[in-house]
């Protein structure tokens, strides 16, 4: 693996080929916020909070650092007016669903996000997919998945698998960035009221 030299926030950083900007930054002690990232899991690129500015061949682009591969002479800015503005709005959008999440609150403070900017729709879930992906990729059980799409998308435990596997595992619960309790609630609900079709849907 060849070594790659890039510049993050003015600091020269050495990275290996195949690393992402996020990995390179972390290895150099540079902090980039994340919500859907987990080192054991495939990058998902969904929360977009790790968005950064890169300069490639004279062009400035916004990319998500958890996915974008490092390349030689890449110039990365982990904070800029634009990046901060995007992160602030993303946090405000997520806090419409999970206003009391401590992870979100911490970031909100950093970026000046107003937790009450948007009308509350307390679903708690910000669709980071950590539970879903952890169950699929690490546990290889697929006991929890996404159902529906668009603005109606939500997580749901599959009763047939969950009733068998989840009680003794619950490893996904602490991964949830918004609410451990919510994860438990969704699990119980799925098992108590399994829907005949794809498993439970929870019209709340």
């Amino acid at each position, binding site marked *: 693996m060849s070594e790659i030299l890039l510049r993050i926030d003015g600091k020269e950083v050495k990275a290996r080929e195949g690393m992402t900007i996020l990995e390179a930054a972390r290895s150099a002690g540079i902090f980039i916020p994340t919500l859907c990232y987990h080192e054991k899991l495939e990058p998902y690129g969904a929360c*977009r909070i790790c968005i950064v500015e890169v300069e490639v061949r004279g062009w400035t682009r916004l990319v*998500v650092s958890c996915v974008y591969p490092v390349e030689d002479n890449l110039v990365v800015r982990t904070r800029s007016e*634009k990046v901060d503005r*995007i992160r602030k709005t993303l946090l405000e959008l997520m806090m419409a669903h999970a206003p009391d999440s401590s992870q979100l609150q911490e970031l909100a403070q950093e970026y000046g996000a107003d937790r009450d900017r948007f009308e509350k729709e307390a679903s708690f879930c910000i669709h980071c997919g950590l539970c879903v992906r952890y169950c699929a990729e690490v546990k290889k059980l697929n006991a929890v998945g996404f159902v*529906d799409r*668009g*603005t109606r998308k939500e997580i749901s435990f599959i009763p047939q698998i969950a009733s068998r596997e989840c009680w003794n595992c619950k490893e996904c619960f602490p991964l949830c960035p918004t609410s451990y309790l919510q994860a438990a609630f969704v699990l119980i609900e799925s098992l108590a009221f399994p829907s005949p079709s794809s498993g439970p849907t929870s019209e709340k």
Partner: protein
Amino acid sequence: MPRLKSFAELEELRKSILSIRDPNKPCITLCSGSACYACGSEAVAASIENEIEKQGLSAEVDFRKTGCHGFCERGPIIVIHPEEICYLQVEPEDVPEIVSQTLKQKKVIERLLYTDPRTNEKIVRESEIPFYKNQTRLVFGSNGNIDPKSIDDYLAIGGYSALAKALSQMTREQVLEEVKKANLRGRGGGGFPAGKKWEECRNAPGEIKYVIVNADEGDPGAYKDRSLLEGNPHAVLEGLTIGAYAIGSHEGYIYVRQEYPLAVENVTIAIKQAQEYGLLGKNILGSGFDFTVKVHRGAGAFVSGESSALMTALEGKVGEPRPKYIHTAVKGVWDRPSDLNNVETWANVPLIINKGADWFTQFGTEGSKGTKIFSLVGKINNTGLVEVPMGITLRDIIYKVGGGIAGGKKFKAVQTGGPSGGCISEEQLDLKVDFDELTRAGSMMGSGGMIVMDEDTCMVDFARYFLNFLSDESCGKCVPCREGIRQMLKVLTNITIGNGKEGDIELLEELSEVTKDASLCALGKSAPNPVLSTIRYFRDEYEAHIKEKRCPAYSCKALISYFIDPHRCQACMICFRKCPADAIDGGKNKIHIINQDKCTKCGTCFEVCPSRFGAVKKISGEPVPCPVPEKERTIVRKSKDK
């Protein structure tokens, strides 16, 4: 049919097909595309078959069910060759007369002809009808002449000669160079040069490569890929095979929506026929090139038209875009190099190979070559599929080809590019339509939807409609798209129901920016276009809704009221009887009054009030005038003898 083993055998076969076809033999063609099918073309077809036999013409007349002719407004369409007599809106009852008069006696039936609305002149020949006359139908033109279920029909018009030429006379590099030189840009959305994509895929490491047809057209109102795949599937297959040859791929997929049953059926038949003829499969025409094609039916998700989502769906997973910053041409299906092009892009390829890049580039503008097919729909006289050279003005498309705005209304805006596109206002009507000009105007070519709106369309409601569509069709994976659309839709809905607030426009702009900049895929990145372009061209409409609670188009129900002008009401009782909500109080010689509490704003009274009275008014942004006092409601009519 034994497989064709050489290029010479293909030409032999073509000759033998042509030798038994007399170009002067009367042939009645019936458009059997989806639109005409919906208008009852099957019943007309049965009637034609029946009548030809009944009148003893089976030996003398050919009957062909063709693909979409494009003039969908007037279907079902019949064209009788060789005279090219075109009959519109044909019903089964018309058929006996068509057979006895036109086929037998060569007499034209006037009432079934197209009437030019300006001159009242009857037009006999299909190509003379203004709708067709102002088009350049390079790709779409064959649709009306061939039976899409017959490979012989396609061979008779020169089909697969481009494939034979590519395989026999051109190297892979030459094919690629020709397509690059033609500057064929992707007809599905972004307009990325197809040749460059092919090259990238060709040069990408990996033995196994895929070529894919994107027939996941899902924009509201768009159906050009559907009609092309339904009406001329072999042209798409031929283009795909040529592309596969240039790229070095031996496996192709056609990703077509399940909701397009006729397209699925026709392309499946076409693949089977091409395999039987040796135009697909192993050692095509003895060239040593192998290529097979499979049909993959998409399960109806708009987002699956996005390249990485389509490829994920092709792998059998949920159609969600991938977050990778690597082109699918390099790492696509199962992480292998995969070239994806739109139906129309592929259908252009045989033309370029047959006639050359120099011929192709004579059509179009500097940056956009060739023609483009649009689904011209909305408040337009001639709804249908139109193929025009790039660079034609919007005005020409709408007025010359489209015949202007329906019902004599005033043009307001045209939306191009589907939900990802934007709308363009009247001041921009002379814009030359190509990839770059549309983008500059804040819209995009997209997959060729063109929705025309008249003065009755509210632009805020229009933006709300598309955001509502996208809130359903977003995959929901990334925050800016899912949540940005959710919040924008809320704001837009609030504005249209009269709950708009100061600052809403700025909020929409901010949400648009984040959604555009931060979304994972093209769906999210382009989702704010309907919002931004309407704000750009129709900001005054937004302001009227927010500040004055007024809908300038009188379209948003919550912001309009119906009111009967007491000075004009003649107490004719028509609206009184027709009101489905019993909201009208009136009687004989008694001026009618709408009970605003009961009124559902369905507009029935407005429509039924005789135009000579014009008593029912739509009002918006102002209070409903007080009803006339009871004692003044009686109409005293002058007696007739005075």
